[in-house]
């Protein structure tokens, strides 16, 4: 057989052998490569494979509820859904953005912004693009599961507060943790976590907030969840509920009685320090913050001249006006340097240190323009300024500030709420420290009737009047029922002093001359003191600017019974244009009446907590067996600084 070509049979055996060695070497090198990956770096790649296939989806722990003192639900949760965007694959996300924008009604620009803001977070961590999903949104996600694989629903629970801002300033509100909070939490908080931002929500955040769980699911390379591959789940630990000292019934009366007027109400049980009701007006609805408050809305709330975010009950530092006369009167009786029978003649004004000080009666629109001859009892009843100007002059600022300080003015009460203000008790050391000048003797005259630099909060006044009527026993106000370590400050007053002062405060309501005589209640020893502060305090003036509507604060601090009261209510009504007794008195009276009505019904056994449960909280607002968490202790009340205060002689 022959072909057109010829081939010989001398084969290059050496070179063929070389090729063999090259083959062995090549396979050896490849094996080395596999050895490096599969044996040396195996753990590293094992973890990467695990990260690939496992996606962690948080299970949000519900926050603990807040109950009132009878176990009625004040703050609850409601189930809701958030829309998550899975960002593992930026190309996919980019591709689906227009469809997502259409389906969920979020602009593409907005989505881009959100992606931009979260670009530093790990890619496997999904972001919330719509915190509150409508049922249409849920339908959209469900029906596009296969063609838009980057959306996921996250079941969350939202805070549900009573509507209309009921108890809103006390409960506070929640929001996403700020960067500072996250840093301060030592890794406990992560971005997007919901935490208490104000009020009790913030104060007791650690108790109320649970621990989020984690659902771990297997996903394939396009992000689809593999339902048949189950991984261990880390369950969410719900937050614990807290029981408040608030009485829903009294709170409701207080809310209605104050109405929409700007101001504040605090009702205390002076025997224990329990806060029974607390209101501040105006109030935002914390439900509005339960999801995510739009920036614009937030800016408006902060710039509102009425400061709706401000809890006046503990933050408004205002001149106490005539309510402070109780302090002046107590100082006079305790100090004993002025005889008890001391009387002044009030022609409607008085001249001290060459300056004329008017009595309020001088400019009253009806009735006499002078008080005539008044003693202590009558001066308290009619709130005669001239009498107390004289007493203040005789006592001097040192004695006044000593007692004001002892009764808590200028100190935080230590209530378990954040951002409480201390008020101010002016004194000689204070003007020297702050204004670097001497005290003007004329200033003492104004302070004697609760004007001038002196400021107090409504809470301080409730504590002060209740404490004096209790013989000088000042309990730390608090919001948590069965609280431990309630601070108890005592400045024992003589029986005689307490009797004279409380007689006078009883007279304010129950004697014909009293400024609160219209408030008289049959069968209840309603006592109290009105106050009308014509000017705002130094600090507050700076804060609000000089606006006319703040120049008229009507106070009434009422309590019952006359001695060792069970309830003490401080009421502040701003811009009322009315006298304290007229504007604020009825609110205090309504609350105290409601307190006794309930007490009487209770002793007759006709009322149970369940009858009066608030309806609006939740469809499933079953009053669960109350497991009350007792906080370890209240925040320490500020102890009185004993540095620059002279002891009584």
């Amino acid at each position, binding site marked *: 057989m022959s072909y057109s070509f010829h081939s010989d049979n001398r084969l290059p*055996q050496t070179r*063929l052998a070389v090729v063999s060695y090259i083959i062995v070497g090549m396979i050896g090198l490849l094996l080395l490569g*596999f050895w490096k990956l599969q044996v040396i770096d195996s753990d590293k790649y094992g973890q990467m494979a695990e990260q690939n296939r496992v996606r962690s989806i948080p299970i949000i722990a519900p926050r603990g509820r807040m109950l009132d003192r009878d176990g009625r639900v004040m703050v609850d949760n409601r189930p809701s859904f958030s829309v998550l965007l899975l960002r593992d694959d930026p190309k996919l996300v980019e591709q689906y953005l227009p469809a997502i924008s259409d389906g969920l009604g979020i602009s593409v620009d907005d989505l881009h912004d959100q992606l931009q803001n979260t670009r530093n977070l790990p890619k496997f961590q999904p972001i919330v693009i719509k915190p509150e999903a409508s049922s249409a949104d849920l339908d959209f996600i469900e029906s596009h599961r296969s063609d838009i694989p980057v959306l996921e629903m996250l079941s969350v629970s939202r805070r549900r507060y009573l509507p209309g801002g009921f108890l809103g300033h006390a409960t506070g509100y929640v929001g996403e943790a700020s960067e500072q909070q996250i840093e301060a939490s030592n890794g406990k908080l992560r971005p997007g976590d919901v935490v208490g931002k104000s009020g009790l929500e913030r104060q007791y955040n650690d108790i109320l907030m649970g621990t989020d769980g984690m659902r771990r699911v297997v996903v394939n*390379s396009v992000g689809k969840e593999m339902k048949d591959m189950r991984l261990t789940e880390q369950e969410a630990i719900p937050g614990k509920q807290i029981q408040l000292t608030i009485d829903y019934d009294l709170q409701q009366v207080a809310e209605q009685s104050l109405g929409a007027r700007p101001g504040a109400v605090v009702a205390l049980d002076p025997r224990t320090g329990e806060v029974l009701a607390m209101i501040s007006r105006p109030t935002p609805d914390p439900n509005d913050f339960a999801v995510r408050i739009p920036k614009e809305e937030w800016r408006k709330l902060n710039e509102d001249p009425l400061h709706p975010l401000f809890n006046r009950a503990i933050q408004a530092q205002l001149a106490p006006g005539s309510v402070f006369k109780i302090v002046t009167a107590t100082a006079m009786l305790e100090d004993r340097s002025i005889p008890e029978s001391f009387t002044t003649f009030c022609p409607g004004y008085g001249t001290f240190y060459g300056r004329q000080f008017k009595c309020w009666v001088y400019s009253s629109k009806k009735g006499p323009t002078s008080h005539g001859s008044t003693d202590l009892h009558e001066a308290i009843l009619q709130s005669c300024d001239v009498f107390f100007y004289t007493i203040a002059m005789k006592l001097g600022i040192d004695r006044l500030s000593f007692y004001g300080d002892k009764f808590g003015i200028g100190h935080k009460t230590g209530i378990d709420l954040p951002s409480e203000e201390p008020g101010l008790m002016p004194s000689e050391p204070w003007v020297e420290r702050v204004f670097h000048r001497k005290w003007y003797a004329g200033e003492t005259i104004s302070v004697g009737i609760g004007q001038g630099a002196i400021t107090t909060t409504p809470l301080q006044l409730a504590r002060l009047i209740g404490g004096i009527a209790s013989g000088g026993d000042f309990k730390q106000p608090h919001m948590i029922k069965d609280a431990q370590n309630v601070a108890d400050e005592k400045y024992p007053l003589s029986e005689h002093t307490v009797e004279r002062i409380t007689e006078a405060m009883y007279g304010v309501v129950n004697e014909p001359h009293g400024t609160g005589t219209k408030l008289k209640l049959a069968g209840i020893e309603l006592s109290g003191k009105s106050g009308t502060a014509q000017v705002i305090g130094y600090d507050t003036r700076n804060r609000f600017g000089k606006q006319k509507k703040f120049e008229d604060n009507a106070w009434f601090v009422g309590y019952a019974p006359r001695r060792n009261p069970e309830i003490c209510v401080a009421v502040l009504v701003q811009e009322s244009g009315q006298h304290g007794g007229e504007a604020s008195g009825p609110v205090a009276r309504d609350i105290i009446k409601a307190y006794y009505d309930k007490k009487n019904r209770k002793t007759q056994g006709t009322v149970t907590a369940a009858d009066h449960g608030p309806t609006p909280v939740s469809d499933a607002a079953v009053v669960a067996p109350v497991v009350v968490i007792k906080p370890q202790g209240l925040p320490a009340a500020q102890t009185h600084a004993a540095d620059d205060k002279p002891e009584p002689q």
Partner: protein
Amino acid sequence: MKDAPGTRDYDWWLIAILAAICALGVVEIYSATHASNLAGMHIKQIKWLLFGFAIMFGLSRVDYHLILDQALILYVVCLTALAAVLVLGGTRFGAKRWIHFLGQDFQVSELAKLIIIIVLARFFAEVRSDELDLRDLLKAGMLVGVPLALILKQPDLGTALVLVPMLAVGAFLAGLKWQHAGIFTLAGVLLVGAVFYPPVSKHLLKAYQRERITSFLHPEDDAKGSGYQLLQSKIAVGSGGFWGKGFGNGSQNQLGYIPVRYSDFIMSAWAEEQGFKGVLLALGLYMALLLRLVQNAQRAKDRAGMFLVMGVAAALGFHVLVNVAMVIGAMPVTGIPLPLMSYGGSATLFVFMAIGLVMNVRLRRFVN
């Protein structure tokens, strides 16, 4: 023919190795696809393999001298087909590689590889001297260069590159001078360097090719493109560990993180599920296959047979090297399948036809 070979002359060891590698491939194709919408792919592969074995035996019956005799015609057919595919071929994934024939899409370049093996064997067999001079080397280069350019035009860099080791191995065995070998190695190194050096490579390579090279060098910059493929492949291989995750248990494989896990990246899926021990088995088989080919070359009756066998060895060896190195992230993505394990019709048929040529040479080693 007086020299009609008997069945015992077949290289049964070679066939056994071949069958074993094919079995690994079928097992892994099944594992990679049974739970997906590609289920049943292993059956198709088995059909291709059976067809392949038939073709291999068929081709072994035709004397390779007869085939070498037709080298010129085959070469012309090859160039015509490559030119035709550029004009008529179907475009898929942005490249013209397929021609529709007998109800199947064939990759013409697979056939071209086979023909170039034959043409080079014929050419080198006719070089008389023990040493290959420069003129013959350039002629050989021309023979390879024309089809290589046509394949590059498709574009199909991977297949085009396979022609280079065929030429290199052929030239080496034909007596390439050591100094020439040195010069060409140096040139090769420079070319590779140029490819990896962007200012030069932008004149040489297409955009998608440059992208592959960049993502090979910096996989982390391109976490979802071909850098992603390489990274996922490495994760699959590495996470397999020494013992592997077990058949059907590779998460990278089963959840689709490995790109084309039944084809170009089948070694990645195999390594994840079978671990280093499985890799040892697979690469051991490939080494045995290649060494067996060299042994057949050593025992060939004449130089033509040897060149034929070594051309096949060069092509298969290069496939294994480039594919497996890619799987472990040591080479960029080139689109070269792993012979016999990767799913694919044309590629499988090429391997069996190539082995058929080897068998052909073996059967005639005692014939004078």
